[in-house]
């Protein structure tokens, strides 16, 4: 029965997660199914779109690329509808084999521009990329005109980005094919690092101007290889989340605000808890001794005042007073100040819990201890407190979990805890939900983890109760 109960929570959790995943994927598929093209497109309109795109890609200044575009013809033969708001166009193309021309003649071009560059330098004229482009244009264009055109088949996609508006999507590969290897040509140019001059190999790795000049001649200035966005809302949400996650936590390793903050929070809590237990047990024992034997009246009175103050004022006010009024003038740093404040505060609550625990132990236990010859303190230490501790463990654990959460006000005196980590990220990115929910989730996970640990500890301690 107990075993069954143990796994019930886990199973319920798993079922919930599975359901959530199913629902998300369900929404995804429903939205995908609905993600159909809204309007139809004739082959003629598709042809016009393709022509405009092909003509537009080079822009106005790349005269070589423009020459290629002018001499390129892409003919739409067939049109079909895809599933992702896309139209598939089966086309044939005829174009200038610029890739071949550049590959064959690259050495010649480089020799020419290098000579041009040396010439200019000798005359004291500065050579820039535009001059090179203008100089080389005629030479290359002659080669292009002499080259044999290439033909072939190619598939081009149109995407409906908004209802009725179609955007052609030309991948790198497609552009390279339609424009006769123009991107290959670019790679050849940019990787050319030596030139033969007067029969000797000269290193021009540092003369970027030469390459840029040639490259400018064939560059596709209007080309954008990004695929048009036709994703469904849930995909967009997912992408937004990914993007926000990245800019909040990954950029500049901003997640370290949270990890370091968590470490600080745990350190403060752990140290304050230890201090709280120490103070709590001392106060509880003093009050119990006073209650049972009538001794330690003065100490007990001090304890009562301490309890009233600690339990009668908000922890945040205590923190501010403790730091700014008491500890700052003494030169105490923020971190120990927070530990002292939370420790003192927690001690008040712990002492009441422990006192309740001590009172709940049967009087016979004290009598048995005393009759064996233990004095009052020894009886407390060896016999009463171990039992009281076990009895109050769940309440103590709750107190510590409360303390972990309460420690989040430490950022008010500037302690860089987990909460302040979230606030810092928020002030950098102006993003609200991502850092704050992350902070909340981290607290939640830590608290649940602590609760689990306490449950395990309780099971261990209850060994002596087993029948």
């Amino acid at each position: 029965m107990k075993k069954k109960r143990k796994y019930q929570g886990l199973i319920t959790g798993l079922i919930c997660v599975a359901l959530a995943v199913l629902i998300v994927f369900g929404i995804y598929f429903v939205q995908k199914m609905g993600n159909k093209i809204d309007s139809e497109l004739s082959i003629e309109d598709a042809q016009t779109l393709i022509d405009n795109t092909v003509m537009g890609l080079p822009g106005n200044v790349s005269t070589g690329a423009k020459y290629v575009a002018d001499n390129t013809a892409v003919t739409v033969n067939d049109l079909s509808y895809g599933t992702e708001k896309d139209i598939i166009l089966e086309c044939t193309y005829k174009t200038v084999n610029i890739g071949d021309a550049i590959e064959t003649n690259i050495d010649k071009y480089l020799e020419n521009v290098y000579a041009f560059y040396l010439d200019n330098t000798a005359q004291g004229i500065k050579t820039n990329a535009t001059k090179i482009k203008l100089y080389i244009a005629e030479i290359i264009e002659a080669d292009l005109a002499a080259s044999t055109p290439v033909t072939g088949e190619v598939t081009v996609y149109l995407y409906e980005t908004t209802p009725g508006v179609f955007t052609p999507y030309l991948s790198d590969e497609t552009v390279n094919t339609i424009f006769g290897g123009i991107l290959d040509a670019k790679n050849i140019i940019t990787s050319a690092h030596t030139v033969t001059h007067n029969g000797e190999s000269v290193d021009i790795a540092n003369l970027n101007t030469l390459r840029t000049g040639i490259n400018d001649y064939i560059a596709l200035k209007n080309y954008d290889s990004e695929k048009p966005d036709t994703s469904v809302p849930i995909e967009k949400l997912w992408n937004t989340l990914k993007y926000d996650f990245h800019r909040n936590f990954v950029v500049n390793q901003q997640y370290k605000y949270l990890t370091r903050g968590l470490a600080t929070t745990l350190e403060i809590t752990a140290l304050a808890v230890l201090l709280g237990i120490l103070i709590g047990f001392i106060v509880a024992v003093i009050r119990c001794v006073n209650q049972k034997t009538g001794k330690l009246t003065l100490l007990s009175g001090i304890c009562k005042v301490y309890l009233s103050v600690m339990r009668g004022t908000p922890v945040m006010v205590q923190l501010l007073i403790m730091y700014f009024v008491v500890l700052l003038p003494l030169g105490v740093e923020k971190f120990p100040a927070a530990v002292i404040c939370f420790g003192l505060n927690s001690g008040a609550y712990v002492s009441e819990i422990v006192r309740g625990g001590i009172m709940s132990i049967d009087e016979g236990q004290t009598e048995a201890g005393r009759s064996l010859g233990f004095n009052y303190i020894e009886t407390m230490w060896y016999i009463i407190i171990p039992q009281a501790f076990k009895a109050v463990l769940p309440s103590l654990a709750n107190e510590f979990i409360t303390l972990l959460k309460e420690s989040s006000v430490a950022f008010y005196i500037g302690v860089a805890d987990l909460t302040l980590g979230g606030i810092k990220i928020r002030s950098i990115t102006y993003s609200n939900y991502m850092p704050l929910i992350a902070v909340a989730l981290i607290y939640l996970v830590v608290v649940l983890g602590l609760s689990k640990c306490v449950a395990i500890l309780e099971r261990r301690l209850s060994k002596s109760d087993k029948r």
Partner: protein
Amino acid sequence: MISVKNLYKNFGENDEIKVLKGIDEHIEKGEKVVVIGPSGSGKSTFLRCLNRLEEPSSGEIYFDGQLITDKKCNIDKLRMQMGMVFQHFNLFPHLSILENITLAPIKLLKKKKSEAEAEAKKLLEIVGLPDKADAYPAQLSGGQKQRIAIARSLAMNPQVMLFDEPTSALDPEMVGEVLDLMKKLANDGMTMVIVTHEMGFAREVANRVIFMDEGKILEQGAPEEFFANPKHPRLKDFLSKVL
């Protein structure tokens, strides 16, 4: 060994409840004294005053010639020599049986753990529970618990054992095992003061039986004479009801 002189004990804020009204008693070494009497007669209070679990209101108690009612007296030292067994056993539930027995010898007599444990195992043999060393009190029956409680007291090597109604909280079938153990103890020469309702046991074991009522000792004597020929009318009345 124990001398009680003019012992008074009052309870309540203004001492308005008078429980013991002038007890004078002397217990010799090796004597087995059984105290009987109706409920509320003060017999348990009398017993608990002997090791000052109850603070006497007035009067004097001597143990081995030492005045233990003196404020300056180190009562903790003296209690080590006076074992006590309670009605409700009062075993320490958070400790195993072995730890229950060895706690006081290790902490108070500063015995080595191994030594204390060896002695504890011998005691467990004596009380007939050698296999329970690693058990916890909650796993034992009432009779077993009381036998462990006796072993725990014996571990301190006391000169006298005080029994406060040791069988009153037990199921009838478990009374025998505890009484048998106490008889064994008596035969070994232990000085014992026993508050009980077990008349058969009193008759068999006691050197002397004391009858208390309303805070006073009304009659005492050797058990044969005491039970066969009671003199005080209150005792006659009491015995007629319990026998």
